[in-house]
């Protein structure tokens, strides 16, 4: 477990370095994820410890958003001031992209399956 955590932190660190070096518009951990992904492809398999530690962390991913989410109490006043447009933007601006993305992927898969069947 400890070597696995060290590996994850190492790749986060490499990601942070890469992002700063190339002035990329993404956070360090996302770059770290991409780097680890490439290294896993080269390595050809996932070490057992890394697999279980990653699984454990991701199983409880939602726990990690709670501290930042509790920050909502700091902005209650600001949100209440424009409550109607904010609430509407949250509802419409979440439902539409979820449905649109899901349907686009589904539609494309259907088209590609049909083209494969035809050829």
């Amino acid at each position, binding site marked *: 477990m400890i070597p696995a*955590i060290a590996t*994850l932190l190492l*790749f*986060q660190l490499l*990601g942070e370095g890469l992002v700063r070096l190339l002035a990329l*518009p*993404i*956070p360090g*951990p*996302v770059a*770290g*994820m*991409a*780097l*680890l*992904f490439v290294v*896993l492809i080269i390595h050809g398999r*996932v070490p057992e410890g890394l697999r279980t530690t*990653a699984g454990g*962390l*991701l199983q*409880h*991913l*939602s*726990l*990690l*958003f*709670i*501290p*930042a*989410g*509790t*920050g*909502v*109490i*700091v*902005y209650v006043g600001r*949100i209440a001031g*424009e409550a109607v*447009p*904010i609430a*509407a*933007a*949250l509802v*419409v*601006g*979440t*439902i539409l*992209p*979820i*449905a*649109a*993305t*899901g349907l*686009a*992927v*589904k539609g*494309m*898969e259907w088209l*590609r399956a049909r083209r494969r069947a035809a050829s």
Partner: protein
Amino acid sequence: MAARTAKGGIVTARLADVWTQLASQPLLWLMATLAAYVTGRWVQDQTKGHPLANPVAIAIILLAAALILTGTPYDTYINGAQILNFLLGPATVALAVPLYQNLDKVRRMLPSLMVGLAIGSTVGVLSSSGTALLLGASKPMVLTLAPKAVTSPIAMGISQTLGGLPPLTAVLVILTGIFAGMFGWPILRLVGVHDPAAAGFAMGTAAHGIGTARAFQIDFTAGTFAGLGMGLNGLATAVIAPPLMTLIMG
């Protein structure tokens, strides 16, 4: 009688003293956050996974109530819960593992995912900012809402670039995630998207890490594709949000 009251007073004073000492230490609020999460998961189990019983939302409500009732400032709280916030970094890196385990499927679906990404990121920015604009939100609020679909560090950066309020964007990002956690999966069912990969990708694209966390709870493949959607849409929105906002705000 008088002696007992005096003794009671001393005990109360001692308790208050102990509270003051513990309340300023990380231990208390770290424990409280874990307890709130465990409670949220318990409620979710009790309701047989009802979408409205979202553990993140329940935990935030419990903690907010605790902070308000005890008069604890958010800064004191976050000092304790910081370690969990920090773990978001390695957890994001860890998304590479399931991604690699699904490499063949990701590769096979890549063209479809790219089309989904292009549509999802554009609809995400336009529907959030457009709805706010139509309902008369102030200009800074419209810009603050525009990047709310993507993971908070990227969303805050985009908000800054656009001229919004980055810390408020972070809060709206989380509210988006909670809303998607509650209604995202039922909506996908409703419009007929049943494939875990397509549905997961939609959850991650439209609702970042919280959507991903929810997808992982439902199905491991869905969680994997959600993580991919989250990462890719962070990039896509950073690129398309500034020109799109110039276009609609004039």
